[in-house]
């Protein structure tokens, strides 16, 4: 038979998360003896080109985290045309109507659920500190241009609201771009606008966004005693905060495991191709709250 070649396409190759996913997929390739082709696909156009490219390289299948979940139908069509197998990772692909696409197995997270975990983590810490929810401002560093970004932060907000946070306490800080500086500027203004809150919690679509809120808070004297911030991802950005000598308001991050996503999806694709054994339709991995205290242990547990 032909040597096995598998594509691994990710929407944001520059993001540490995907670098890690690739790294672990690479490990699977070494273990199982197949070739891995890694391509970054920042948009739909590049995605289509990458799938064509894979076909030209005579790959037999690919794992994909698409730039938008609604690209599902396009992925399915392109894969079918080239006779390629597909597994989606991280974000589950849907069709035009928003229904998950049958025939594309998925392993990943639900953005909304991860967000909820952020919310629950914040609530627990709020309770520990004995804050009154009415006096807590919830800073949502928002990048709603990206649907997953919105889902995640809304998940956190919904969890807080369900626990009794008044809707009026939710403060949106829209960032113009997804980097820390823009989050900083947005958060800074939000703090200015709302001097009335005694305490703050902050969330965002990733660790970088939340870090911006933390730094902005520090600039205004809102430090770790008045602000609890929880990020998403468990990237180096978060770890940097944890290794600082003194704790900062960057309380924790919901760690999701790039190892499982990277390694298992690639390995699953390999066995699908070689033994024709399709992986389960949906595998959801969950996130774990990582803090300064449990970081080493947790990362070891996850094999990172």
């Amino acid at each position, binding site marked *: 038979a032909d040597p096995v070649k598998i594509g691994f396409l990710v929407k944001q190759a520059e993001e540490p998360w995907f670098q890690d996913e690739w790294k672990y997929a690479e490990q699977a390739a070494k273990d199982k003896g197949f070739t891995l082709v890694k391509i970054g696909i920042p948009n*739909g156009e590049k995605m289509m080109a990458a799938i*064509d490219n894979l076909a030209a390289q005579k790959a037999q299948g690919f794992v994909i985290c698409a730039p938008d979940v609604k*690209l599902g139908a396009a992925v399915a069509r392109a894969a079918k045309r080239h006779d390629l197998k597909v597994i989606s990772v991280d974000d589950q692909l849907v069709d*035009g109507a928003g229904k998950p696409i049958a025939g594309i197995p998925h392993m990943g997270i639900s953005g909304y659920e991860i967000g909820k975990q952020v919310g629950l983590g914040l609530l627990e810490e709020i309770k520990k500190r004995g804050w009154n929810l009415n006096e807590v401002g919830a800073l949502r560093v928002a990048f709603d*241009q990206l649907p997953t970004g919105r889902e995640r932060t809304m998940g956190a907000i919904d969890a807080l609201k369900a626990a009794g946070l008044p809707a009026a306490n939710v403060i949106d800080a829209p960032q113009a771009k997804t980097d820390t500086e823009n989050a900083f500027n947005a958060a800074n203004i939000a703090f200015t606008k709302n001097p009335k809150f005694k305490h703050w919690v902050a969330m965002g679509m990733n660790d970088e966004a939340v870090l911006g809120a933390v730094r902005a808070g520090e600039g205004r004297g809102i430090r770790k005693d008045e602000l609890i911030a929880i990020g998403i991802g468990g990237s180096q950005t978060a770890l940097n905060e944890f290794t600082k000598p003194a704790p900062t308001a960057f309380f924790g991050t919901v760690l999701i495991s790039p190892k499982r996503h990277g390694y298992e999806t690639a390995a699953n694709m390999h066995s699908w191709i070689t033994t024709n054994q399709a992986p389960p339709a949906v595998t959801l991995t969950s996130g774990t709250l990582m803090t300064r205290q449990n970081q080493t242990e947790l990362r070891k547990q996850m094999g990172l």
Partner: protein
Amino acid sequence: MKKPLNRAWLTEHSMTLGYAVLFLVLAVSVENFFSAANIVGLMLSVAQIGMVACTMMLCLASRDFDLSVGSTIAFAGVLGAIILEHTQSVTLAVGGGLLAGALIGAGNGVLIAYLKVNALIATLATMLMVRGLAFIVSQGQAVGIADEGFIAFGDARILGLPLPIWVTGACFLVFGVLLNHTVFGRNTLAIGGNPEAARLAGVKVEKLRVWIFLLQGLVTALAGLILASRITSGQPNSATGFELDVISACVLGGVSLQGGKARIFGVLIGVLIMGTVENVMNLMNVDAFYQYLMRGLILLAAVLLDQLKARGSKHG
């Protein structure tokens, strides 16, 4: 007479020759590069850039600049998808998308030609506004497309080639003829070279500019609709940074940002170089981070080559 002609010819076509050599080298050295599937894939990957580069060429030739094309692609796609969703009519969807594109383009043109707003600022403003509109009408969500007729638009094949490639080819043909064989094209070059002299020579400078931008908007919208059909959804955040790719392809193809100079064939080569580089790097599994480095180096290599040759011919 014979010799200098040959040299001029060489100078004129050095980029083409360079690309031909590159292509040959890649064909023999990179596995899977020279296969029908890959070449089709390569062409498809630059179909959108190619279409828009045709009109961007006109725009640059007239000493203007358009940053709004990326947003227009997104907006036209989203709008088309929404109209389709509501009316189930492909005609209305395509018509609506094209109309929107033409209006955006004409708006740019009026701002620049009549209200004398700096082209960079004017199209930057439209870029922001149109992107905003794309988000607003779609509420930030991709709009799915289910209509098979519409999807066929980006998927159907004629003589083995996907429709978008044919459309791009047609654009190069039409705009090549427009540039070289019509008054419209010649006057475009004239206003790019010296707008005041062109006006005194009877060129209706303002009107022409509006037309150029209108065409640009129209073709860009077409590209947006085709993209939407290829990816079976209208995506409000698609094609960001597209404008720079298109402009680079044009400049690579010898279009001058100072206006007055353009060659359709050069633009074609520019577009192909951009596509080929990306294609080959993916075929060769170049690491994502190193791809940045490589793309930069190859851009430089391409223009430096062009430069050296230009100098050679000057001194020789």
